[in-house]
């Protein structure tokens, strides 16, 4: 706000020059007009500056002890040199027990990193599919353009409830209830997926064009036909790309839930953290980083196939695999 004040006074100077020969009433009117125009054109920027100031003051109010930042560098260097580096790549070598049955070149498939990673991927995959199966009907119920309020509000409440806790808390819960292992992880991530994916889905459904819905209403379609004959094809692109996003998201979070004993690569990270073998931990982290990066790229590409809207013909899966020269005569 103080910013705007200084600019206002500047604009008054300019005005003053212009109206030296004119009457002062006009200059006053001009000043207000210019000030309000300035406020109007830069209000979002001023708001943003205001938010930054607030954020800084809030941090200060929590007594952050800024002085501690000064030691960060030393701590980091010591920690890095003494325990982190170099990474201990034994994590991608086959475990001593159980005996590795894979072909000699593939012995890495018996390593803890590989086993953990594959388990995390499996958990994410199953949780995404299960979660989607449950969240889609729920999101239909939660959409206000499909369901009356007395249906949509309870459905929203259910969805909000299952995403209000992060998946690691759900994992903790299921580990306590049904014990250690990937099943707890699957259930935890499924619950979270229902809430999160369900919200994305009902927002997509509420965003679809009103026209097809009205036509469907006029024709007299039932709930089932409207949901699966109209809504599903109309919003399919959005829904598919959200599922792909959700799988990627679940994989990223799946690396963590092992820490509370719910399966996946997080189990090993937790194990070696306890033994203070940070060089092994960093090896796992690097592997996770690389896999997440790859999955991220694959996910972006896969989703790009389903976000098009226009006159471009979407490539089908087989057309990606074939050279363009073979495709040209297949166009109809």
């Amino acid at each position, binding site marked *: 706000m103080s910013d705007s004040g200084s600019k206002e006074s500047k604009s008054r100077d300019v005005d003053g020059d212009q109206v030296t020969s004119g009457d002062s009433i006009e200059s006053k009117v001009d000043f207000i007009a210019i000030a309000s125009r300035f406020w109007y054109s830069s209000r979002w920027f001023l708001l943003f500056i205001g938010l930054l100031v607030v954020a800084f003051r809030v941090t200060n109010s929590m007594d952050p002890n800024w002085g501690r930042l000064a030691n960060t560098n030393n701590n980091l260097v010591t920690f890095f040199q003494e325990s982190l580096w170099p990474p201990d790549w034994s994590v991608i070598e086959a475990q001593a027990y159980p005996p590795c049955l894979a072909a000699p070149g593939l012995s890495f498939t018996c390593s803890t990193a590989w086993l953990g990673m594959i388990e995390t991927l499996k958990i994410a995959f199953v949780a995404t599919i299960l979660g989607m199966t449950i969240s889609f009907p729920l999101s239909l119920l939660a959409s206000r353009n499909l369901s009356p309020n007395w249906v949509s509000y309870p459905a929203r409440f259910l969805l909000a409830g299952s995403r209000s806790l992060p998946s690691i808390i759900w994992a903790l819960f299921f580990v306590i209830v049904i014990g250690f292992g990937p099943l707890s992880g699957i259930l935890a991530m499924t619950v979270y997926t229902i809430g999160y994916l369900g919200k994305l889905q009902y927002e997509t459904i509420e965003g679809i064009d009103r026209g*097809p*819905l009205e036509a469907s*209403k006029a024709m*007299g379609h039932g709930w089932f*036909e409207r949901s699966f004959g109209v809504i599903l*094809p109309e919003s399919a692109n959005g829904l598919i790309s959200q599922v792909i996003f959700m799988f990627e998201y679940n994989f990223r979070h799946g690396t963590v839930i092992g820490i509370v004993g719910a399966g996946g690569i997080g189990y090993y990270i937790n194990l070696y953290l306890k033994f203070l073998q940070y060089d092994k931990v960093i090896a796992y982290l690097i592997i996770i980083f690389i896999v997440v990066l790859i999955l991220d790229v694959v996910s972006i590409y896969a989703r790009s196939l389903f976000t098009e809207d226009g006159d471009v013909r979407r490539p089908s899966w087989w057309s990606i695999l074939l050279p363009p020269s073979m495709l040209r005569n297949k166009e109809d």
Partner: protein
Amino acid sequence: MSKSVIHLENASIGFSPDNPLIKNLNLDVNQGEIVAIAGPSGIGKTTLLRTIAGLVPMLDGEMTLFGRNSKASRGELGYIPQRLGLIRHASVYHNVLLGALTSTAGAWFPFSFEARRRTLESIDAMGISEKKRTPIRLLSGGQQRRVATARTLAQQPSIILADEFLGELDEETMESVLSKVTNYVRTNNATLIVVEHDISRAKRMADHLLILDDGQLNPFVDQPIAMQISMRLDKELDI
């Protein structure tokens, strides 16, 4: 003795009760009739059709369809919206099938042979057979309009509400679409209300031509423009 299929009594139509688009409308459309409605843009023609289709609540008055005081039941009413309401990412076939399955007994959509037959038949009648696997978004404006018409024909409804369904078509295609629809209406003794801007076309297809203006639906008076203007002036000046 023809029976009244659409009956509106003292109907107020629009979105705000203080300022309805159409006031105190009385309208009776009999079975087998074709009624065309014309009028200036933004006057409420589409809103009138949407009200009859049960998509916009009436502000006041009464409406009966088939003598019943309720909305049309499943498949009874076919609506060709001005903006078509097609599913852009689905194929022509899928869109038309959605119409057919509302009036084919006891079948859920992929499995009914009767629905399938009707779908293909009306796609063919609209001359878009070679596009039946194409998604709507890749069709031209006129082709999309014909898909919406095909969807309604496949439905075999007793009432058709058509909002400018002949737009964007060349003369020849327009004639063919028009004759298919009027044929359907005549042979099945159905009822058609059509919003049509082209007065001469409207007169040719319809039994009655109504003009929506000043919140009222009046019979079209075929007089030279000068006469109409002077009549209007008379009305306004209360002579």
